[in-house]
């Protein structure tokens, strides 16, 4: 008998394509969240595969905190042009200016939490009934229980104790007026799967994922990038280091990794050898053990 076998990356790919197509078939106004990070880059790549040779049947949505790495924004604009996608930008700065969100104060101030307000406002403004996101279940404990199709009430909130059962590959996207869904097509991927797939498919990545020189400072064991809106304590010194991003959030909460990895192969070797989870360098999760669960209930990604 012939060998009818898919390797794990092709099986994950096929599952994700199936989920993305299911969204396009079941919903009227889908949108795909795009942060410029590796997970959403892979998700957009999968979406292109799902509908080829047609263009994406939905727009991309970027929630812009105003604190992005310039490299991320450049990459975003190039990608959108290359694949002919429609891009919508939701601005956290606008939410703050309108008094919809209140800027945090102090040294650890971040706009990460404020994104939720902008996201929900943008969803409502454009009447999107589903938003696809690049979250993975292996990232964090609360995400381990997230469904592919995650139902949100009219306030955009997630009720972890009252989730719809999800069996086989049958996805129930039915909802009442005013409710919407979050869908996570790459739920079953790990960080390693994502990088191996990027290598397999030769997907172009933003330059900040590769090694580069950057002005940084050390806070509680994490290297953070120097930027005009970052307040340094007296004890914190600016240093020039050879770093790369392992994960990309906005600048205020993205810890940089000291690294000389200059190719996808080197990045994969580095990840195989690391002993800290990628979210270990994310400030937003360190606030409390249930930080992610709390933010998700409010309507975070």
């Amino acid at each position, binding site marked *: *008998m012939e*060998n*009818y*076998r*898919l*390797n*794990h*990356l*092709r099986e994950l*790919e*096929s*599952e994700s*394509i*199936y989920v993305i*197509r299911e969204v396009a*078939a079941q919903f009227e106004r889908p949108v795909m969240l795009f942060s410029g990070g590796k997970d959403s880059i892979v998700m957009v790549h999968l979406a*292109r*595969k*799902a*509908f*080829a*040779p*047609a*263009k994406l049947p939905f727009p991309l949505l970027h929630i812009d905190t105003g604190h992005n790495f310039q490299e991320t924004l450049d990459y975003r604009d190039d990608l959108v042009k290359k694949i002919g996608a429609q891009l919508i930008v939701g601005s956290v700065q606008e939410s703050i200016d309108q008094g919809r969100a209140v800027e945090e104060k102090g040294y650890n101030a971040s706009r990460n939490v404020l994104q939720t307000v902008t996201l929900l406002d943008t969803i409502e403004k454009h009447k999107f009934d589903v938003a696809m996101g690049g979250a993975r*279940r*292996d990232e964090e*404990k*609360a995400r*381990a*229980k997230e469904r592919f199709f995650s139902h949100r009430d009219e306030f955009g909130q997630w009720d*972890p*104790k009252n*989730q*719809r059962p999800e*069996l*086989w*590959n*049958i996805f*129930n996207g*039915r*909802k*009442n007026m005013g409710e919407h869904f979050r869908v996570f097509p790459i*739920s*079953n991927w*790990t960080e*390693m*799967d994502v990088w191996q797939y990027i*290598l*397999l498919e030769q997907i172009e990545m933003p330059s900040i994922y590769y090694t580069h020189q950057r002005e940084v400072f050390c806070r509680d064991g994490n290297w953070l990038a120097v930027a005009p809106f970052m307040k340094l304590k007296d004890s914190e010194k600016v240093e020039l280091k050879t770093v790369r991003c392992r994960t990309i959030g906005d600048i205020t909460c993205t810890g940089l990794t000291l690294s000389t990895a200059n190719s*996808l192969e080197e990045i*994969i*070797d580095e990840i*195989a050898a*690391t002993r*800290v*989870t990628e979210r*270990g360098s994310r400030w937003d999760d360190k606030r409390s*053990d*249930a930080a992610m*669960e709390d933010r998700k209930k409010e309507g975070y990604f």
Partner: protein
Amino acid sequence: MESFSHNGYLDMELLRFTTAGSVDDGKSTLIGRLLYDSKSIFEDQLEAVKKASIQKGNDYINLALLTDGLRSEREQGITIDVAYRYFATPKRKFIIADTPGHVQYTRNMVTGASTANAALILIDARNGVTEQTHRHTYIASLLQIPHIIVCINKMDLVDYDQKTYEEIRDKFAQFAQTIDVKDFLFVPISALKGDNVVDASANMPWYDNGTLMEILETLHIENDYNFTDARYPVQYVIRPLTDEHHDYRGYAGRVAGGVFNKGDEVIVLPSGIKSKISSIDTFNGEIDKTFPPMSVSLSLTDDIDICRGDMIAKPDNMPEVSQDIEATICWMNQKPLNTSRKYVLMHTSNEVKCMVKEIICKVNVNTLEEIIDDKEVGLNTIAKVKIRTTKPLIFDAYKRNRVTGSFILIDEATNETIGVGMIS
């Protein structure tokens, strides 16, 4: 670590397994052990668990804390929902569907079992085969999980006694004959101490059939899909409507069974119109053949009207088409089944309305006895029923094909998934 290198990806397979057992059986400890010994737990995760263990006054690192993710679970020390865990060895990537094992969580066990290639069934060596073992095995067989691995745990508490292990093994094998379980294996372990989980146990020299990890790594899963009956539920129609692809019309879907080759004669159901596959398209270009679980796009030589919910098969091997089905259902909602109400039934890419015409019997999941005098189907009930749909379903028996033989029931008023079924 070199084994995870960039060249390794071509040879890795994906194995999905489910774990059934309660807190008392050491299920969370076993998963923690698999993650820990396979070095899938990172320093910061271990650090968090250490901190939490000390806070709770535990004497050793409580590996169970790694898996209990929701705040209320950590507070109550129980696992409420299905949680998915990931780890990889140089040979395979694994997805664990971790489900709670108490009787009131039958629905979670069914959920975890629905996508699994293998089930781990935990037995406490001190208690032997219990009602709970029967329940877990029955659900695994009901959901047609191809492989069952019986982990006889807590061997350290019975002095690693060979006779105890053999008695449990024989008793389970005897029980397995009474239900539909084909492939089962046994392994004596101590999740707490690590015997035979990843490393072979020095305490049980009488056992030499491989550690649990070795079994998971070598289980033969290539034939878990049905490669015989060609089935292709149409999921979405791709029509680019651009100058470059003006006339392109592709039927997007995921192969649910069998093999489709370019040039094959096919039949479209329910219309019954025949055509030929003119191309099998992917983003990376045309391919010659496709099989489960690939997501592709098919083009046909004839311009016929095909939409989501249709099924492409082969004229010499057709699925059943009927408005009347018999099925075993598991009820997932507090609100009991109402035989005078219409429900929405989702099956492959199809959505129809239906009524449950008759409750043939309920099944006692502990004794596996059929109950015919009580017809109340409530949360966690498993029952055999007859269903009538408003439009024909295109299906196979669940035993032949897990994709074309499964469905879910939805309450139209709340849109909740309230029941799931496997077609007989």
